[in-house]
Structure formats: structure tokens, C-alpha cells
């Protein structure tokens, strides 16, 4: 009977272990995406310098803005495209307008495609690092500052920086109520 108990408790432990592993997949996935730059996710403003020996070249950057679900704000970039030289600082302005009659909070989530290019797209300043709070009818223009890494693989001639705008008013007020 003891051996039965022993096998059963080992199996129960295994079950608990796998339940935890399911949750561990969340940070594992984030770290994996961060290291490999998959999923077009971009890490924070970490870029400082690059190897000056690498030749610079021209790359086409496309800016895409879209609203998630029923997000009513208007959200546009100052121009849809620009040609940039790798290794140099650039700036692009984005305009948000709260078209509703009540104050709202929004969060823009960036994504770079092709995903392989994401880790060469360095943003030194971005509105996406924080939430935007706008009163009813208010509008705001905010910049993104970025540098394209000269080490960008040769076969990538153009990059697209996409932003999806989410309505986080509810989540944010809930969070503040909790605090």
C-alpha cells in the first residue's frame, strides 16, 4: 500500500509542477520574444551607440496606425512614409484626438514588421511608453524618435512601424481604484 501512496504522491507533484509550468510559459515566452525579437515586439530605449565601421544605407519606413475594436479616437501619423539613413536620428509626429464627449485613456501598442527587423528598430522616445489621457474633444501631437540600426540585415529594404490604439479607460480607472 505504501508503494501506491508513493506513486500517487509523485504523480500529484507532477501535476502541480505542470500547472506552474503553464504559468511559467508566460515569462518564458516574453523572454524568448525579447531575445529573438520575434512577434515584432520592441524593447525600451536601450540603444546608445553602434559600430561606426558599418556603412549606412537608406531604408524605407512606413507608419501604420489603427484602432482596436470600437476605439473611437482619431489617430494619425504626420506622414505615411519616410526614407531614412541607418544610424541617424529621426522624428515622426503622431496626432491623437479624443472624438468623444468624455475623458478617456488610451494605450498605443507598437509592432514592427517584418518581425526579424524589430530588434534593429530603436526608439529613443515614444508615446507608447505611457498612456495618453485626453479630455473630451482634446487633441495632442506627440513624437516618436528612432534610429535604425546599421546592422539591419541587407535583405530588409523597408520596415513598417504599426501602432494599434487600445481604449484602457476602464482598466486604468479600476487600477487606480485599487490603489
Amino acid at each position, binding site marked *: 500500500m505504501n508503494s*501506491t501512496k508513493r*506513486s500517487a504522491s509523485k504523480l500529484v507533484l507532477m501535476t502541480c509542477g*505542470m*500547472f506552474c*509550468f503553464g504559468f511559467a*510559459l508566460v515569462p518564458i515566452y516574453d523572454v524568448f520574444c525579447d531575445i529573438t525579437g520575434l512577434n515584432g515586439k520592441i524593447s525600451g530605449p536601450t540603444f546608445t551607440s553602434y559600430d561606426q565601421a558599418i556603412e549606412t544605407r537608406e531604408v524605407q519606413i512606413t507608419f501604420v496606425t489603427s484602432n482596436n475594436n470600437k476605439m473611437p479616437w482619431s489617430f494619425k501619423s504626420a506622414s505615411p512614409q519616410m526614407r531614412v539613413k541607418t544610424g541617424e536620428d529621426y522624428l515622426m509626429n503622431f496626432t491623437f484626438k479624443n472624438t468623444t464627449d468624455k475623458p478617456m485613456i488610451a*494605450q498605443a*501598442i507598437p509592432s514592427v514588421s517584418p518581425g*526579424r527587423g524589430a530588434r534593429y528598430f530603436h526608439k529613443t522616445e515614444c508615446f507608447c511608453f505611457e498612456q495618453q489621457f485626453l479630455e473630451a474633444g482634446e487633441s495632442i501631437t506627440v513624437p516618436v524618435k528612432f534610429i535604425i540600426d546599421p546592422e539591419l540585415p541587407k535583405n530588409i529594404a523597408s520596415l513598417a512601424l504599426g501602432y494599434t490604439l487600445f*481604449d484602457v479607460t476602464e482598466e486604468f480607472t479600476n487600477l487606480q481604484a485599487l490603489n
Partner: protein
Amino acid sequence: MSAVIESNHDDHHHGPAKGFSRWLYTTNHKDIGSMYLWFSLIMLFIGGAMAMVIRAELFEPGSQIVSPEFYNQMVTNHGLIMVFGVIMPAFVGFANWMIPMQIGAPDMALPRLNNLSFWILPAAFGILLSTFFMEGGAPNFGWTFYAPLSTEYAPPSVTFFIFSVHIMGASSIMGSINIITTILNMRAPGMTLMKMPLFVWSWFITAYLLIAVMPVLAGAVTMMLMDIHFGTSFFKAAGGGDPVLFQHIFWFFGHPEVYIMILPAFGIVSHIIETFSRKPIFGYSSMVYAIASIALLSFVVWAHHMFTVGMPIAGELFFMYSTMLIAIPTGVKVFNWLSTMFKGSLTFETPMLFSIAFVALFTIGGLSGIMLAIAPADFQYHDTYFVVAHFHYVLVPGALFSLLAGAYYWLPKWTGHMYDETLGKTHFWMSFISVNLTFFPMHFVGLAGMPRRIPDYSMQFADWNMMVSVGAFLFGLSQLLFLFIVIKCVLNGKKATAEVWEGAKGFEWTVDSPPPYHTFSSPPSMETLKA
């Protein structure tokens, strides 16, 4: 002296209690096995009725019978019920009945846990089915419940769905703990691991798969629950989460899950083919290693379900090759079955017919699986009826046929009565013809671009769809015949002998048909199998 003691003992010896409490409180593996089997048969007809609604809607193009919203609920619940309510509990039912009898054990190692793992199942499916009567209707996001479709955009009943999945998971995990513990500790003396019957082996490995992945599924639905009710952002992009993460977690569970639904089938079919070929199984140890390698590989192939999410080439290649690798152990099994039949003295009773059909049709499903594994080609097949054809070929003429084969094979043992062979063969031929009529044309419409999970379709798919619907109705009808055959067998079948099938090997054939309520109170000797 000892004779006196034994007869005294016989006086105290009692059979099952009477009435409903027998079933509610039972800890007997045979009772619990029967309940699992009846439960899954009932769920088969409920899930089947949903399939009939789907096929009735798709009989002709255009919106015919049900609303698109209800159609989505049908598709979702058909999948959930067939996977979690039919195939899995039916195999657990077989495990309960057959594992103790095949290894010469008196019962399962943890009989009370066994009772609990069965009785929470009707609760789980009661909750799931009750969602049909709730505001907003039943779950409608597909059996794969991808977030955010199943979180932000889900009907309010999704919370009930989550709890029912939790309960189903708990039931499977408890069942698996019981099965592994039984196999490890209660084998007859002399039955080493490599002498175990193949059905026992297949369940031994399946139970490990269940323990490894059901908790991950429980974790996934828990994260959904937290996203919906507690403001977390596991899968919400707005809060820094990632919907693609859901697919990774789901398929990390989901791919081993599909092998959970087929490995015990391999075990059942192996027994039937050796019995009716009157030869021992060809390549026993390679069969065991093949099952084990399929199980191990199942953990590293999950992303072939999601080639189209945008993976790097290296990822696609890895998952493509690892998936194709599974064809090797599966091929070993198929050729072993063929070699077992080769030069055997074959007879074609109903279980054998279903098993041969299993080998042939499961292989068709396996081959379309290889097609789907080809990453560049998958972009065309993804989310079309080709995928539907593929997984129905491995689950219906695969898993379900093996269950029917096993039911015919062991029914005389369970009930003590023979089933009606003519009716059994009629059932087989009706099922065989209609299953192919149902699922084969799905390959064609799928390759031509008909998307799955849509209640309407373009005119050019009309003819094939009508044919598919006719096949499906016929298949549904054939299974009612099965119900009739089982009831007829229980009520007034011919008396069955202990051996039932000429040349059948294994401890289960050394006891009477039906077996006494308690078998193998003292362990049998391996010598009895040599005769």
C-alpha cells in the same frame, strides 16, 4: 479446515448493492468502467445531434435553419463534447474495465478516487450544456477558444465554460493518477513492464501525457478567467499581453491531447488484430517504443497548428520537420499491424472489420496530416475544410472506430452475452460507407478553399456539401443501430463462453463471461497465459 473458512468467507462475500446507490457509491472498477462507457455513449448522441444540426445547415448554400450565432455554438460544443465528453471518457471506461483485468489486479489502486473522477464528469457537462439556456448563449468561439475571442468578445457564459473545463481536467488527471498507480503497483507477479498487454502500455503512456498537459490547459483557462474578471492582461495586447501566447499555451496542451485520443486506440486495435489473425502481435517491443516516441515527440510539434501567425523561417522548419518525424513511429505501428495480419488465419468478425478499417482510414488521416505539416502548403490548407477532413479522419474512423471495435470485442466479456453478428456487420458496413461519404469530400472542398466554421458557402461547393450531409445523416443513423445492438446484447444475447474468441490471449479471457463482481482477489500466474 481451510475449506470451511473459505465457505464461511463466501457467505460474507457480497455482490453489488441494489438500486441507484450502487452506482453513486461504487468503487468497483467494472461498475465505474460501465458508467464511463454509458456516459460517453450518451454524450456521443448529444454531440452527434449537434453535428446533425451543422450538416443540416450546410446541406444547401445560404442561411437555412439556424442563425449564424447558434451555428457557432453548435460547432464549438460539438467539438468540446466529442473531445472531452466522448473519446476521452470512453477510453477511460475501457481503461477501468480492462487494465485491472489485463494485469491480473483485483481493482484499481485508488478506488474512491476513481468514483470521484467519474462523478464529477456529469457535473462538468451539465454546466457546459446549461450555458445553452443562458443569456448570450453557449460558448461560440470554437473548441480551441482562442483569446481574445474567448475573453473580450465571449458571451457571459464563458465563465461556466471555464469551470467546466477545470472539472473535466481534474477528472482526467485523477483518472490518470489512478491508472499509472495501478499499473506500477498491481501487476500480477512475473508480469514485467515489457510483458504488459499493449492496451495497458498505451494507457500507461497516455496517462503520463494527460498529467503533463491537462494542468497546462487548466492554467490557460485560469489565465482567461483572470483576464476576464480580475483585470490581468495575459492575452490582452492593450495591457502588454499577447494573444499569440494563448495559441502557444493552448497547443502545448492541444497537440499531446490529440495523441491522448489516439494512443489507447492503438492498444485496442493491436489486441483485436492479433486475436483475429491468430498470431501474436508482430514487433511487440517496437510497438511499445513507437508509442513512447510518438508521446515524446508530441511535446515539440505544437506550433504546426499556428504556422500562419507569423513565425520565423527557422521556427517553421523546426516544427515542420519534427512533425514529419512522427510519421516514422506511426508507420512502424501501421506496418506491424499489417505484418501481424500477413499469413495469419484471418476471420472477419465485427471487431476485426472495424480494426482493419481503422488501420486503413487512420492512415489516410495520417497522410493528410503530413500534407498539413508542410509549412508552405499549410498556408493554403489552414482553416479550410481540409483540416476538418484531416482531424475527422483520425478521430472518427480512427479513435471512434477503435472504440466501437473494442466495444464489440469485449462486450461479450462485459455482459456475458454475444452481440448479434449480422447486425454488427451491418453496423460496420453502414458506418464504413457513410464515414467516407461524410469526410472524404471535405478534402476536395477544403483544397478548393472552403473555410471551416462558416455557416454559409459559395455555390461551387454545393454538390459536395450535400453529399457530405447525406453521409453524415447516414452515419448518425448507423450509430443508433449500435445502441440497439448493445441493448439487444445486454438483454437477450446468446450466452458467451469465457474465452469468447478462439485464440484470444490475456488474463481477461481466463475469467467467466461476465466476470464475477470481484476478479483476481489472488493474483493469477503468468503460466495461465502460456496455454
